């Protein structure tokens, strides 16, 4: 991922800035730029979500995604944030056997990878059991 593409999403990845529709109050993370319900009537504005949620589902990945091969086996989960939206995130710093559906998690700031050995570093969120 080239620098501009990563940089553009820094507020979203670092600080969980999503969007909220000023018309129907629905909160979106990852951010959306059209409210699917309100469409032309929608007014999307930046909205900061709290870094808390719970595990809706999880898997233990043994055949890793590009850039994550050295971290296998790693936990990948769908987390439902306090405010409602769900996101996909790894669960870090824990043993796969410790995780259950329904567990509370917080989102922490972690290194997600690098463009290559000479390239920029990517940061973002991962979940951690509370």
């Amino acid at each position, binding site marked *: 991922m080239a620098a501009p593409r990563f940089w553009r999403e*820094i*507020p979203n990845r*670092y*600080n969980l800035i999503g969007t909220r529709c000023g018309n129907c109050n629905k909160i979106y993370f990852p951010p959306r730029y059209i409210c699917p319900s309100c469409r032309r009537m929608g007014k999307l504005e930046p909205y900061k979500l709290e870094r808390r949620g719970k595990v809706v589902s999880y898997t233990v990945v043994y055949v890793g995604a590009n850039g994550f*091969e*050295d*971290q296998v086996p790693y936990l990948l989960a769908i987390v439902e944030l306090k405010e409602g939206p769900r996101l996909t995130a*790894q669960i*870090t*710093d824990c*043993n796969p056997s410790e995780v259950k559906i329904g567990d509370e998690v917080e989102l*922490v*700031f*972690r*290194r*997600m990878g690098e463009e290559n050995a000479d390239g*920029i*570093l990517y*940061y973002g969120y*991962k979940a951690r059991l509370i």
Partner: protein
Amino acid sequence: MDVGIVGYGVYIPKYRIRVEDIAKVWGDDPARIEHGLMVCEKSVPGPDEDTATISVEAARNAVKQAGINPQDIGAVYVGSESHPYAVKPTATIVAEAIEATPHLMAADYEFACKGGTAGIQTCMGAVEAGMMKYGMAVGADTAQGAPGDALEYTAAAGGAAFIIGKNGGGTLATIEGTYSYTTDTPDFWRREGGAYPKHGGRFTGKPAYFKHVLAAAHALLRELQLSPKDFAYATFHQPNGKFPLQAAEELGFTKEQVLPGLLSPTIGNTYSGAPMLGLAAILDQARPGDRILVVSYGSGAGSDAFSIVVKDDIEGKRNSAPKVADYINKKIYIDYPTYAKYRSLLVR
């Protein structure tokens, strides 16, 4: 000077490796190492952690504990000897992640293990001069220990962030004074592009660590007209468990004053994080009115000494973010092969 600590936050990674598991690999006697260094295990950063991620969690904890608006932070300085980039600051990553951008000053510091305390001094000056309301100084490292070298037993990972502000604005401790002693002393260094630092063996003791730590401490005490008995606590830079106890003894401090801030036995040497984590551990338990001496040491070489007096506000504030003990006690042990993988000694 009328400045103090508005809030502080720490972070120590969860993974630990025992001295005995390292000793086994190199054929060293673990008992001799543990006794000689007074370290029995050290913290290890996970594969998704680095100085930036450690600094961010510590900084976020500090902002939460201080209860301030991050937009009022006028500067962020991150001191480390393991910045993720050689060129591109860690401070901007931290500033962005605590939502302090864009109206602030920022830079990275390097002064071996005292880059963080140097940042505290800069913040003190700028706040006192009225340049900004609050300044944040972070000291954090994911220290590199060459395989088979003595430093491998102690090179650890962790960090702490301190927010400095005017006492009138609400602080939990006041900094009554600071003094630095600096010379050009090549006791420990790492060349550009080098993977691991090198050191001068026994040269790192008397002419380096002890000369600067003792000089800075003496000078600060003299300037403030204080003596060891005026202090409830003292914490000296802790590359291992032995040096700080020796420095304490030479200065006339007791073991009881030093032990609460002595973390290296259980987490190793967190380098730029060490003096600030030691101070944080003390602040986690100190009572209003307690006076604390902090003396950092950075190879190359220099020491920053601080005299800090705890205020009433501390009782309310310090429970709103995780304490040093919370991170020390949350741990998972790993073996040497896993350690080697996490520290990129084994690369596919």
